[in-house]
């Protein structure tokens, strides 16, 4: 077994979660125009103000062009060839899992995310988004007692319109960027969370996203509001079935943390990355942003990105409140022909604001990994601090790692630190582990997990184990 073979094996590993569930879907006519938007809005029985917001989003979309600054070639996207709405036909609400389509449950079994297990073992309340519409929600009652709202976005529009109206688009406006504008106009569903004042959410809130209908764009919208002094940890994890055609995914996530509130948002992303030639993978163009609105608020993003043909996203924090904190922990893996252009933006506005960025890129095969980050110190950001650590790990000699750190400081009392390293998994490291009885495949997994440990440690326990496994599976070849 030499290094090259090992690397080729890693590079050529087939996607492990490739399968399609056959459930009839209700699909919108292909193409994007005002009628499509009215169709979606009507399907979802939305109030007039929301339709008009969607239409404004559509106008923003029409005004904007695709960006040109990214470090990869953006494939041509024909927005008129996409179907903008798909929902499982059987849309009634379930009281228990027994009522859920067994085939859907079987899909979850394959993914190893049995709801039953989740409910009993992990104490996780799961709001499953299956092709854009929530079909199962659990733990609702327990959360209700505390006044916590955790529901699908659609339900929130019906049941808590005042909250949605107040915060929707307040962090990511409909005009923010072309994909955010697209999302604003056609978003299908997503999750909504509200944690009342002083409440500490007693469990991790979790949503599993899954893309499952052919030619269907996936446009989730998530809004999380943590009222003063509250705390919530939210998990987002996803896998997708094998597909031949590229699928565009343009989600928007907005987080609002009021004074002394804390939001921890964790993502494990494992969408179909395409075959070894890069054909058929998901385009993951997501806008994620949080705002620390009040003093001493904290928002922490943790992401483990192993899937998608192209990952293009910058979970960011606006540090408005004094003494507020923003964190970004990221592991991004690219192999085969995968591309990741990801990082974060930390906008320091308030005094004594702090941010911490730990980014770990891993490239294998012909993968290309770019870290792009912006640290901005505003004129009033007295004594603000940032620490950035940005590491790249290369496996083999055909992959790439790039770093684009942007720093803007308008306050001379602010402190900004940036550290960056690039390393290769060495033959020496693999041989050392071999000599202790560990085969090359396990050795790579061990080294990679060690490298990513600082980030994995940020994930909630049960998620960390899953992520660790995912990293190993992702970089596993049929070595032997």
């Amino acid at each position, binding site marked *: 077994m030499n290094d090259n073979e090992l690397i080729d094996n890693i590079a050529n590993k087939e996607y492990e979660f490739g399968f399609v569930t056959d459930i009839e879907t209700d699909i919108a006519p292909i193409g994007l125009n005002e009628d499509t938007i009215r169709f979606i809005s009507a399907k979802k029985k939305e109030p007039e103000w929301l339709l008009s917001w969607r239409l404004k989003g559509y106008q923003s979309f029409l005004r904007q062009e695709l960006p040109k600054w990214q470090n990869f070639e953006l494939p041509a996207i024909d927005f008129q060839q996409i179907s903008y709405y798909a929902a499982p036909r059987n849309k009634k609400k379930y009281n228990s899992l027994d009522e859920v389509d067994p085939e859907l449950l079987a899909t979850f079994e394959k993914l190893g995310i049995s709801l039953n297990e989740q409910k009993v073992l992990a104490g996780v309340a799961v709001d499953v988004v299956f092709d854009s519409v929530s079909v199962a929600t659990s733990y609702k009652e327990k959360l209700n007692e505390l006044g916590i709202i955790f529901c699908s976005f659609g339900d929130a529009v019906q049941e808590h319109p005042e909250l949605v109206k107040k915060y929707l688009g307040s962090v990511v406006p409909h005009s923010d960027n072309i994909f955010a504008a697209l999302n604003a106009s056609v978003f299908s569903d997503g999750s909504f969370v509200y944690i009342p004042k002083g409440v500490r959410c007693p469990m991790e809130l979790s949503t599993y996203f899954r893309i499952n209908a052919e030619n269907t764009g996936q446009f989730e919208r998530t809004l999380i509001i943590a009222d003063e002094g509250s705390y919530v940890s939210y998990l987002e994890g996803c896998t997708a079935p094998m597909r031949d055609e590229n699928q565009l995914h343009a989600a928007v996530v907005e987080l609002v943390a009021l004074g002394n509130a804390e939001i921890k948002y964790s993502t494990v992303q494992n969408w179909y990355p395409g075959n070894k030639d890069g054909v058929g993978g998901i385009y993951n163009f997501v806008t994620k942003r949080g705002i620390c609105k009040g003093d001493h608020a904290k928002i922490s993003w943790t992401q483990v990105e192993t899937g998608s043909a192209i990952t293009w996203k910058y979970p960011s924090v606006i540090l408005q409140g004094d003494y507020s904190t923003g964190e970004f922990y990221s592991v991004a893996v690219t192999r085969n022909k995968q591309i990741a252009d990801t990082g974060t933006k930390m906008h320091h506005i308030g005094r004594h604001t702090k941010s911490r960025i730990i980014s770990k890129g891993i490239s294998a095969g012909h993968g290309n990994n770019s870290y792009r980050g912006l640290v901005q110190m505003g004129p009033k950001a007295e004594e603000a601090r940032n620490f950035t650590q940005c590491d790249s790990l290369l496996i083999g000699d055909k992959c790439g790692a790039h770093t684009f750190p942007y720093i803007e400081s308008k306050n001379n009392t602010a402190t900004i630190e940036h550290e960056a390293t690039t390393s290769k998994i060495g033959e020496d490291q693999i041989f050392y*582990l071999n000599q*202790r009885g560990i*085969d090359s495949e396990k050795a790579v997994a061990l080294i990679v997990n060690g490298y990513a440990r600082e980030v994995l440690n940020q994930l909630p326990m049960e998620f960390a184990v899953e992520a660790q496994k995912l990293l190993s599976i992702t970089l596993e070849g049929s070595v032997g």
Partner: protein
Amino acid sequence: MLTIKNLHAEVEDKKILKGINLTVNAGEVHAIMGPNGSGKSSLASVLAGRENYHVTEGEVLFDGMNLLDMAPEIRAREGLFLAFQYPIEIPGVSNINFLKTALTEIRTYKGLAPLDAKEFLRLTKEKQKLVEFDAKLVNRSLNEGFSGGEKKRNEILQLAMLEPRLAILDETDSGLDIDALRIVSKGVNKLRSEKNAFVMITHYQRLLDYIVPDFVHVLYDGRIVKSGTKELALELEEKGYDWLKEQVDEKQAEEKQLGEMQLGEKEAIQ
């Protein structure tokens, strides 16, 4: 246990081993000495199966099995251990997690169930005491930021944990101060038994004061040019390697001359 017959090997087309013969039996300690560049560490690398070393001739039997046919991890699982001259740092991988993984792999290969967490920790504690290894280092990243001495002692801890049948110590004494050397040697001596064997590669006789070998071999220019008992090491300490080198070089020159003369005679006859 280990039989090396006429072993030839090269790295990047450079011949580095030119016919090694060596037999190591269970319960024995062999020391391999020799000047820089004589092929000592290369021999260790070939036995452990390092990738860019190519065996061109000869064979190596490990308990009757063809060692050279095995992947490096299989050699390790079969009980061959190499204490590295320069132990590798692996950031983020905790020493304890690494030890557990290695031990589990080896046990699984032998058809044994993995130790549960409690048993494993008990074993680690016991071995750690045996080789006087700092408990704090067990939880740190593997060799990362360890001093030279700490790395070498970590090798001996791994040796104690994995209990190989044959341990090759590649210049384990280099870079150790006298206290560390004493501790490492004490550890090795405690691990010696009738069932296992040690091959120690070293420059200096110093180590052999602490770990007394049964046999001493001198490697020069890819061959074992002299074998003896521990007294040979003392002789080398006193006289250096030059007299041996001269002997070998003279002999080689003679052989060459002889060959040329014979050739010349042949040509003359023709």
